[in-house]
């Protein structure tokens, strides 16, 4: 007779009912070791395929209960080796690579790259080109912030602002398409100018857009800014101080939300930004809510700059009159030997940058966007390096989420406004 049978026999007492279940009685102590779950840490994996990671970001989180103890970001799933590819292309052929990095603000990348190469070559673009590029960069700052606003609202659980933001965004897509023929992969700039002058009435379209945008922004703001759920999810979440933010290399709205008024447009002005009237919004607490408020205000300030830029848009040539970089006109080409030689050399060899290097920073939508170009005198870059603002911003995410709750990781990630195409390059 096995041990189990004996136990059954013993336990079968008259108190047992018909269904062999023991009748209710005093609980017997059970000699089972209770697993101590308090010391157990849990690992969870967020991404790379997760809608709230805004791309292919993977976060490995070590949890103690619901508290994040450690966060380890893994990137590189979208690595496309743009910088290596750029070394095999002529200076102008690099431009299509730049807008594929940050596909949320492609024109800023186009302009920043062209500006770095022009600085290296000593080319001064025309007034009309300068103002056009300012319009394009500010337009894409709005464009990028609108996408951020929509996805931010989705992450916080609000669906309506997403639809409003994307409706406005569609108008910028149309403006992109009207100017460059492409909605995202704009490739709008050339060394020394633009791909073309702006089409008839394009500036009117921009003005119409920025006239209508503030009303939509008011509606979105009324849905979010004083919303109790939104405030509860974002205030005091993902806090970083000014000292730490500078130490981590944060830039753009993420740094300004901590109270540091560092904006490349103000601190190292390019393209006459010092003559535009606009303010740099800064936050106070450095939390997610401040980052939200800073970006909202930046959209409005960008509209201000756009109004001023459209007002001062001068007539005149778009491209610089420099045979080293810009093709001669067809008439000159057919009538002038010199122009034909320039045309031949430009088409066959491409633009040639003198030996040297240049590091040029603009204020991108995500932060300080630096373009570092090194030339040995040939028609291809020796090195083309992008100072990626999202990459540096994302490196701070362990500091922001560790010690917080798991649900806040999503909000912190949304508040950093990353784009993986540029992080992985």
């Amino acid at each position: 007779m096995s041990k189990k049978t004996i136990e059954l026999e013993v336990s079968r007492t008259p108190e047992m009912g018909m269904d062999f279940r023991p009748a209710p009685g005093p609980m017997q102590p059970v000699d089972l070791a209770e697993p101590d779950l308090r010391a157990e840490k849990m690992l969870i994996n967020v991404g790379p395929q997760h809608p709230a990671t805004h791309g292919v970001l993977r976060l490995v989180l070590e949890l103690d209960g619901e508290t994040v103890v450690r966060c380890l970001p893994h990137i590189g799933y979208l690595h496309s080796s743009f910088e290596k590819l750029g070394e095999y292309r002529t200076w102008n052929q690099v431009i299509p690579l730049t807008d594929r990095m940050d596909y949320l603000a492609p024109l800023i990348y186009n302009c920043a790259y062209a500006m770095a190469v022009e600085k290296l070559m000593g080319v001064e673009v025309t007034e009309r080109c300068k103002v056009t590029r300012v319009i394009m960069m500010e337009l894409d700052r709005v464009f990028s912030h609108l996408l951020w606003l929509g996805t931010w609202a989705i992450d916080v659980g609000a669906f309506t602002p997403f639809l409003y933001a994307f409706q406005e965004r569609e108008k910028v897509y149309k403006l992109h398409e009207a100017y460059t023929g492409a909605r995202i992969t704009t490739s709008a700039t050339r060394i020394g100018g633009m791909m073309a002058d702006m089409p008839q009435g394009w500036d009117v379209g921009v003005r119409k857009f920025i006239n209508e945008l503030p009303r939509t922004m008011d509606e979105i703001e009324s849905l979010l800014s004083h919303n109790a759920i939104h405030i509860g999810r974002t205030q005091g979440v993902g806090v970083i101080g000014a000292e730490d933010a500078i130490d981590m290399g944060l830039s753009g709205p993420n740094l300004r939300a901590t109270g540091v008024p560092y904006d490349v447009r103000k601190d190292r002005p390019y393209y006459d930004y010092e003559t535009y009237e606009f303010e740099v919004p800064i936050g106070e607490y450095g939390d997610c809510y401040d980052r939200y408020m800073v970006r909202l205000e930046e959209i409005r300030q960008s509209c201000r700059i756009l109004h001023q830029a459209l007002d001062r848009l001068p007539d005149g040539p778009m491209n610089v009159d420099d045979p080293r970089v810009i093709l001669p006109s067809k008439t000159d080409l057919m009538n002038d030997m010199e122009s034909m030689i320039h045309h031949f050399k430009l088409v066959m060899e491409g633009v040639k940058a003198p030996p040297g290097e240049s590091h040029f920073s603009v204020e991108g939508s995500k932060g300080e966007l630096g373009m570092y170009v090194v030339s040995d005198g040939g028609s291809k870059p020796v090195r083309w390096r992008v100072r990626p603002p999202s990459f540096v911003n994302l490196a701070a995410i362990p500091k922001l989420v560790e010690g917080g709750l798991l649900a806040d990781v999503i909000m912190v990630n949304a508040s950093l406004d990353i784009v993986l195409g540029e992080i992985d390059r």
Partner: protein
Amino acid sequence: MSREEGSGYRDVPGPADDTGALVSMPEGLERAHPSVPELQARFDEAFLRHEVVAGDEHVVFVAPDRIYPVLEWLKTDPDQAYNFLSDLTAVDFGGGRPIQIVYQLYSIPHRHVLRVKAEVPLTDLEVESVVPIWSAANWLEREVYDMFGVRFRNHPDLRRILMPEVYAEGHPLRKDFPLRGRFSRAEQTRRALAQAPEDYYVPSDFGPGRDFQVVGWQEVGGEPVPVKEVATKGKAPQPSEDGSSGAASGDRTSS
């Protein structure tokens, strides 16, 4: 300073030495930068040369073994206060020339820009990590290590960042690295398909005390294999009776 007084394109003398950068400098510019003269006076033996490129960009070359004290002084000295590490990258000019490590510094209080460079020879690709000075250097140095193979001493977590950890083809942004990689397309596909998801989804990123951790990579039959150490409460992995060891170190056993 404006471009007129600087070296514009037309008066540029051309490539001077192997680096392709400009050495001959217009008169007066060497004193124009607020940090360079004092840097030169203080670190005379480490200060190699000073260039001005693209009109107004100041570049200081520093001996690679002294890069840490120079950068630390630039950050901590209140008159310099380069508290913002804007960029950290490297440039390979090819042809066996030294790799330049580029530190792009910015001082938010003083609004000064300075670029510091250190040239490291290909035979000794190692510099001191600047993560203790700027935390921003953490990922940037990892990227330079990944792309150029430059090792950073005392870096807290020097791993590949953009390429997979099992990537065996080298460092992609080096000039001797072919655009399409070192392996054939068929071999690259085979390796991609042969990767075990566990290599990426184990808690290997977390330090000791976990179940096991990847302690390194080794080539077994031409394959990069993670060497996993089973941390069973301080007990070293014991080889089992049939000769294959507990850890993935199959090339040492001879069964």
